[in-house]
């Protein structure tokens, strides 16, 4: 996972989106669910290798939430 400042997050080798809205995007990964929490979150791009998120990222949580 790459974080660029507080405005962009790139998640590599994901296993799909579990749920998403403007405040939280939960992504399935090999390490378990990854939650990106913030405001005005948007999925900018998504393909098999990566998901690119934009918005005001406040925190990233790993594991079951």
């Amino acid at each position, binding site marked *: 996972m790459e974080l660029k400042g507080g405005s962009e997050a790139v998640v590599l080798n994901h296993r*799909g989106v*579990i749920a*998403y809205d403007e405040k939280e995007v939960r992504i399935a990964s090999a390490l378990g669910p990854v939650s990106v929490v913030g405001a005005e979150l948007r999925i*900018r791009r998504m*393909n*098999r290798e990566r998901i690119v998120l934009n918005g005001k990222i406040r925190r990233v949580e790993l594991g079951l939430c």
Partner: protein
Amino acid sequence: MLSFLRETAEIEVTGASTALCLNRWTAADLPFWALSIQSELVFRCRIQAARLGEIRREAARAWCDVRVIRRFGLPVVLSRLRSRPVLTVGLLLAVVLAFFLQSFVWFLRVEGNERVPEEEILRALWEEGVRFGTWGPSIDSEDLKNRILNRIPALCWLAVNREGGVVTVLAAEREREETPLETEGVAHIVAARPGIIRKISVVNGFADKKPGDLVLEGDILISGIAEWTLRIQATRAMGEVYADTLRVSELVCPVSARKKVYTGRRETCVTLVYERKRRKISGNSSIFGTSCDRMIKVSNWTLPGGYELPVTVETETLLEYTLEPLELPARQAETLLREESLRLTQAQMTAGQIETGSAAIQKTQDSYRCRGVWNCLELISKTIPAELFGEDEVNGKTDQRGTD
């Protein structure tokens, strides 16, 4: 840019499991981007329009509906243009002309000239074949420069630059050689006209006259040469001499003249001038013959940015008049002639003023004659070169008294 070249569609997806829909698209390698969440069950995004069918199928497997909101991109623009053939052809023609037309000369500019008129340089260019509509690549800048410099000797350097349809001529003029004031050599100051000296100021040299002396034209006032017992001193005389002089002027004017009286009739003629060709648009310029005043106003057609086209519009306004006899009253004639006599006398003096005098007016059968006699205080000094030795001395014929 790439997404503009390919047709792109903006879609709206509605369903209970929108995240599943995204995962299915990802698994099927269906690209999507610019996703924006509208609500819990609705999101919008952009996709490649060519893959809309697959997108719909995968979305259906995730129990989601897909609705196309709009399509855009170059293919959409082209399909719209197909229904407007004239616009399409016009656009293509405009693009072609924009590239092609740059090869011709449309505007000429001259920069750097101060004393040489711009019209002279433009006329020289015209005669050398560089004008509105000339094929640009045919202009040989170096050769043209040499030919223009031959035509206009006042220029010492020229550069001709062509940028698109604009030809800019940069010119540099030769510097004018100023004639330097002569400050060397032996010289006298002599009287330019006769008078009685009132004031003599000597800066250099030897005063030959004093205030109160009557001098004639050519008399030496300040000498540059002084002979002493055993030596001769020579210098350049400098100074000013003011004297009382007498100036006489004679003027004549006719008793009767003719005065213009406008009839009120007017005519306006408009002519279009393209380079040297003229085409009358309206009006008749010979309607009044020669009994009219002509006022011509010329206006250039200019594009925004100051680019002048070689087209001018001449608007000629004709005002008809008739000539009626007018007799000049004696008083008016006297005033006119007197003022003119004073003005003429003042103009003839190098420096100075008219102090007193009078003008006598005499009327004959067909004219008024004025004789002005003016007492002036004026500068009468002028500098002339002096010969140090006379011709006899140069030829060896010196005074023999001492040897006898």
